[in-house]
C-alpha cells in the first residue's frame, strides 16, 4: 500500500524558498512562473495494514506537518 502525503506552506506564510525558486525559473527563461510554493512530500510504502483515516489524519497533523504554518493532504495511491 502506498500513501502520499503532501505538505505545503499556508498561503499566509512567507515562503522564501518558493520566491527564490520562482526567481531562478525566470533566469532560466520562463518569463512569468507566477506563484511558486515549495513543500514536502512524504511517500509511505507500507507492507502491512494501513492505519484508519483518523489515525492517518493524526499522524499528518501532529507529525508530518505543523498546522501553524502548513496544510497537508494525503492520498492513497495503491492499496
Amino acid at each position: 500500500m502506498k500513501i502520499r502525503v503532501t505538505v505545503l506552506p499556508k498561503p499566509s506564510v512567507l515562503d522564501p524558498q518558493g520566491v527564490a525558486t520562482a526567481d531562478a525559473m525566470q533566469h532560466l527563461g520562463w518569463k512569468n512562473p507566477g506563484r511558486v510554493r515549495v513543500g514536502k512530500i512524504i511517500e509511505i510504502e507500507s507492507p502491512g495494514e494501513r492505519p484508519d483515516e483518523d489515525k492517518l489524519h493524526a499522524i499528518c497533523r501532529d507529525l508530518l506537518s505543523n498546522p501553524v504554518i502548513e496544510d497537508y493532504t494525503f492520498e492513497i495511491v495503491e492499496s
Partner: protein
Amino acid sequence: MKDPAITPDVIAQHGITPEEYQHIRTILGRDPNFTELGIFSVMWSEHCSYKNSRPELKKFPTSGPRILVKAGEENAGVLDVGEGWAVAFKIESHNHPSAVEPFQGAATGVGGIIRDIFTMGARPIFLLDSLRFGPIENHAPDAATNRQLFSGVVSGIAHYGNCIGLPTIGGETWFDETYAGNPLVNVFCLGVLRHEEIARGAARGIGNPVFYVGAETGRDGLAGAAFASRELTEESKEDRPAVQVGDPFREKLLLEACLDLLASGAVAGIQDMGAAGLTCSTCETASRGGSGIDVDLNLVPKREEGMTPYEILLSESQERMLVIVHKGQEDRVREIFEKWDLPYACIGHVTDDGIMRIREKGNIVAEIPAAALTDEAPVYHRDAADWTPPEALDITTVPETDLIAALPRLLSHPSLANKRWIWEQYDHMVRNGAVVGPGSDAAVFFARECEKFFAAAVDGNGLITRLDPREGGRRCVAEAARNLACSGAVPLGATDNLNFGNPHKPEIFRQLRDAVEGMAEACRAFDTPVTGGNVSLYNENPAGPIDPTPVVAMVGIIEHESHITRQGFRGTGDSIWLLGDRAAGLDASQFLLLLHGRKEGRPPQTDLAAEVTLHQTLRDAIRDGLIRSAHDCAEGGVAVALAECCLSGETLVGADVILHNDGRRDDESLFHEAPGRILVSVNPADEERLQELTTLCRVPAYKLGTTGGDQLVIRIRTSSFVWPLQELSESWNTSLGALMGGVAETPNAS
C-alpha cells in the same frame, strides 16, 4: 546471480595492470574470483595504497619528540601537547565527489575526516576547509556553474559540520579557471584526547568478536569505483548511485557511541569504514594486528535486498565503523549501541592465520592474506620531466595602471575578498572555543577539555606551485607557520593534502616530487613533523590538469591567553612596522594575475632560515607584550595586507604609511608578494624595545607609519595614494555576497 568471468577486460576495468594481476595470482596461488579481484582493486588503488606517491611521501619528516602516533600508522597522527594531553588531526580531500554532487560530496568529505579523528579515540573539536573553484564573476565563462558548485560545497560543509556540532573556524578559498570543473574540497579536523585514550585500528586477540556499527550498507559509491558492475544485478544498475548521501545525525550518534565505547574499555581495536568500506577496514585491522579476520556478510546490516558479496564489500556507505571487542564485553557494547539507537551486528571474529576470510550463506567468497592487501601493494617510481625555471618577469611588459583603482579591485576579487559569506554559514561558535574565529591569520581555539589554546591555519598556493613547484611547497608551509606566528602560536605539526593532476604524465610527477621536497624542507626548518595527509591525483578538467595545489594545515599552541594576537588594527596612534625583508617584483603575484591576467614570473624564494628567525622574534615580541596586532603579507602584497589590518579590527581604523620604493615602480612596491613579511602595530612607547629586539635578532624592521583616521594613505616618494576606508570596506566586505546573492540555494540544506 553469477559473477562475471575474469577476462582481461574485466581486469583492466578494475584498474589492475597485467603485472599486478600476476602478482595477485602469486599471492593467492590461484586466480582470484570476481569478489577478490574487486578487493584487490580497491586496496591497490591510489586512494588506499598511495602506489604512485608513497616514495615521495617518505621524504616528509615524520618524527619528533611530540609524536605519539606517526604518519601512516593509523587513521590520523597524534601529537603530545603536554600534561598528558594529545591532539589528533588530519586533512582529507573530497574533490571528485564534490564535482559530481557538490552538496553531498562536500558533506560526506566532512563526515569522513571527522570519523578518522574519533576513530583515534579523540573528541573532535574543530574543522578547517580549503576550497578552490572556477571563476564566479559574472563575465567569467561558466560562472553560473562555478557559483553553483561553490554554493553547494559551502552548504554541504555547513550542513554536516553544523548538524554534528563542530565549528569550522578557518579555511581558505580561491577562484581560478584552472579549477573550473574540478573544484578542490579539502577538509581538516582536529580532536583532543588523553595519551592513554589513543585507540588503535588493529584486530588483536584471537577469538575476539568483530562488530559492525552504524548505517546499513547500501549500494553507495560503487560506480565511483568504476567497474564491470553492470553485469552484477541487471535490475539495480540504473539506480546504483555514484554519490553517497551523508547523514550527519547518524554520525553524531556514532561519534558519541564510539567515545562512550572507548571509555568503557571494551574495545580492542576500532576502524572507520571510509573508502573501500568493509574491505579496507577488515584487512587493515587484521594486517595491523598481525592477525586474521573471519567475517560473515549475511550478518551485515543492509539497506537493500539482494546485494552481492562484491557489492557489500565495496560499498562506500557512510557513517559505519568496525569495532573489535574484548571477548566477554559484548553486552556492554550492545548496551551502548542500543542507547544511541544505532544498527549493529556481530559479524565475525579475529583469527590467528593472517587470512581475511569472507563468508556468505555458508560459503567462503573471499580468502586473502590480509597483509598482502596492505603491504604488498605495488609501488611505482614514476618518471619526472626536466624542469626549466620560469623566466623572471620583465616589468616593462606590464602596463602601468591606475593604482588607486587597483586596490579596491583586488579587495573585491572573490579570491581576496572577505569570506564572511562563507563562514557565516558555518556555525563557527559551537563548542564555545573560537576565541579567534574566521577572519584573522590563524584561528585560535580554546579547547575546554584540556584548557589549552590551539591555533590552526591552512594554506596553499597553486599559482606559485605551477610556476615553481619546490617554492610552492616551501611557500605554503612557511605561510601557514607565519599565520600561526602572527596569532602568537608555536607550531607543533602539520598535515598536508596533495592535489595534483595525473602522475603518469612526467611533468605532473615532477610537480608532485618537487612540491613535496619543498614542503619537506620547510617542515624540517619549522620543526613541524607531518603527522599524516592525503593525496588526490588525477585532478584534471578538459582544459588540462589543475595548477598543482599542495595544501598544508598547521597546528600550533599558544602558551598563554594574553599572547593571542589578531590581525586588525586596534586603535588610533599605534605605530605600524614591517618586519622582514622588502624587495621583489610583481612575479607570480595576484596583482599580475587578477589585473593583468598573467600567470608569470619567477616567484620570489622563501628564505627558510630568515622565516624561522622572523617568527621566533615576533613570538618573543608578543610574549613581551609589545605587539598590538600582527598580520602576514601574503597575496596582494603590503597594500592588501594594510587594507585588511584597517578593515578587520572591531572598528575601522585608518593608517598613514610611507613605503620605500627601492628604485622600483609604485605597483611593485604596493603589490609585490615577497614572502617573509609581517605587519605589526605597536604602542609608540614600545617602539624602542621592538627595535632593540629586532636588531638583536637580526630581523629587518622598518617603521612605516601610524594608525588612525578614516582613510588608508600610502606614500611612496612623491606620490601619495589615498583610499577612504568606507570604500575599501564596501569592496572587501560586500563583493562575495553580492556575487552569490542570486544563486539558487541548495534546497535540501535544513
